């Protein structure tokens, strides 16, 4: 079910009832977040930077035989790296994220874990982290966020904290773990698995100009 409201710039914004949490105006890049059942403007976003991603909003694909569609993305830029978190929604309304960075792709879901950032602050590159019995990850990189921006319709909040440390982990089971520590106290952890581009059976990508 779709509904709409008008941006302060006058441009109409369509959103998905009970799904959309954050949405950016395609005209002026104002970012609105759902607060007490109302979309409130919280910021004006910087433009998304050209990162040569083959994906775009409205790209469709398949994961575990279920069809999904991409509705938005967050583009996070670190001092020496970058990451796209594409928001994707299955036809049944469930949603997940597709992590994309330098030609690697992963399916990510946010974990609802109560954890203290202190537990992860001392992690170093190459160190092992056990998150469950016999379930290990290794730290591949620790990055300080330089900027974040977003576009489209997102079923998650866009956290515009000026300070964010991202810890990327993986293991030999093609699993991925991303720990985002915002400021002093906030933490968000996403886990998932790496897949090849071809595994998603993407349709309606950007014109790949013979690259595939």
């Amino acid at each position, binding site marked *: 079910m779709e509904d709409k409201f008008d941006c302060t710039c006058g441009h109409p914004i369509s959103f998905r009832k009970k799904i959309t949490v954050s949405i950016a105006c395609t005209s002026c890049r104002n970012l609105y977040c759902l607060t007490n059942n109302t979309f409130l403007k919280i910021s004006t976003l910087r433009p998304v*930077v*050209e990162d040569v991603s083959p994906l775009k909003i409205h790209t469709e694909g398949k994961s575990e035989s279920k069809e999904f569609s991409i509705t938005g993305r967050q583009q996070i830029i670190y001092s020496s790296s*970058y990451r796209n978190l594409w928001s994707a929604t299955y036809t049944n309304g469930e949603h997940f994220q597709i992590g994309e960075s*330098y030609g*690697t792709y992963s399916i990510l879901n946010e974990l609802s874990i109560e954890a203290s950032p202190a537990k992860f602050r001392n992690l170093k*590159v190459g160190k092992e982290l056990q998150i469950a019995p016999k379930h290990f990850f290794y730290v591949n990189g620790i*990055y300080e966020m330089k900027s974040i921006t977003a576009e489209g319709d997102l079923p998650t909040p866009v956290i515009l904290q000026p300070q964010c440390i991202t810890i990327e982990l*993986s293991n030999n089971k093609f699993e991925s773990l991303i720990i985002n520590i915002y400021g002093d106290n906030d933490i968000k952890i996403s886990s998932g698995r790496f897949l090849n581009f071809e595994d998603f059976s993407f349709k309606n990508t950007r014109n790949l100009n013979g690259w*595939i």
Partner: protein
Amino acid sequence: MDGSEINSVNNLPSAEILECPKCGSDLRLTGFLLTKNIACGKCHSLFAYANGNLKVIKIFKKEKKKHNHIPIGTKGTIDGRKFEVVGFANYREANTPYAWDEYTLFNPIHGFTFLSVYEGHWNYFEQTILRPRPQGGDVNLNGDSYRIFNRYKQKTDYALGEFPWDISENPSTITEYINPPHILAHDKDTNEETWFLGRYITPKEIKEAFNLQSHFPEQTGIGSTQLHSSAASLSKVKQITLYVVLSMLVLQIILSISARDKIVFKDQFNIPGNQAGGIVSPPFELENTLFGKSNLQVELIAPVHNSWMEADITLINDKTGEEFHFEQGVEYYSGYEGGEAWSEGQNYTDNTLSSIPAGKYHLNIFPATPPDGGPGYFQLKLTQDVSMLSNFFITLLIALIFPIALWISISSFEAQRWMNSDFSPYSYE
């Protein structure tokens, strides 16, 4: 607006041409946000690229300029994936003269890959998500052991084109592990570590991949991941050799067990005073065997002492008249000289005739001794179907010649490979 926004959502961007802020030459931009450095081929400046801006961070010495055999912008296909060559750099192991070239390849879907060439030997690298397990000083990836080969910090001597990270500073430590034709490279600094999985790739494959006719650097020495031309077949040769040796052993055991070792003739003969005179033996029978023919061992014993005795012997089939001629002799000398006793020769000898058909036989013997005396008699013993170990060992030797030669060749090849390593298992004089 800083020139880095998306111009067309529906199309991947074509390479953009920037102007070199130092000399005004064209600089090609393919990776956009993914590009961190761009180097100008004309003024040799290296720029940091961010948000559409170029900031000079280093100027390479003109004399360090290197020729890139694959031009920037060349497109090709490796392992079924299309790539464009976007960067070329000449790196050196810090504080050493060891230098190599590296080409940066880019595909918007699959990211960056690399072609590295040292002394004419090429490796193709892709980043791997999988993390190898430590195994002592070595590592293991998917059950395959990779031996540590090299560890170093790298320095950039020259660059051209674009790069996904800052090549002006190289704080990371690189460790290489090999399992020819594969290689794992571990690049680690305080903020990030990356594993690259590489494989040996021939100049011919690269020329075909990029449709190039140009002359590539000559190969010297043995590449760190180069395979010996017969390395792939060594394990097969080992397996076949094992089967052959086991089969020969089983056959020898069967032959030994089934050997009759039957004495068919034994007699003592006086040597006639008239040297021209011959001896005709009584007849004897060679029995039929499994193969129709059998060997026949002839043992000659004569009581020679500081003397010799020879016999010209013919084995004659009484029915067919077929003859088998051979000579056999003994000699034995001894003495005392310079306070030490010595001896040479013996009064026994044996000889084995092969493939003698069954049947009734006799011997014509013409013995000979020195004119000034010799033994007065000799003994002959003929044994049919004896077990022959010598045949087994000769065949075994022949069967092992090729595998041993191959093993020596591969071992020598490996020793040469590891000469370039600080972690060589070989010791070099």
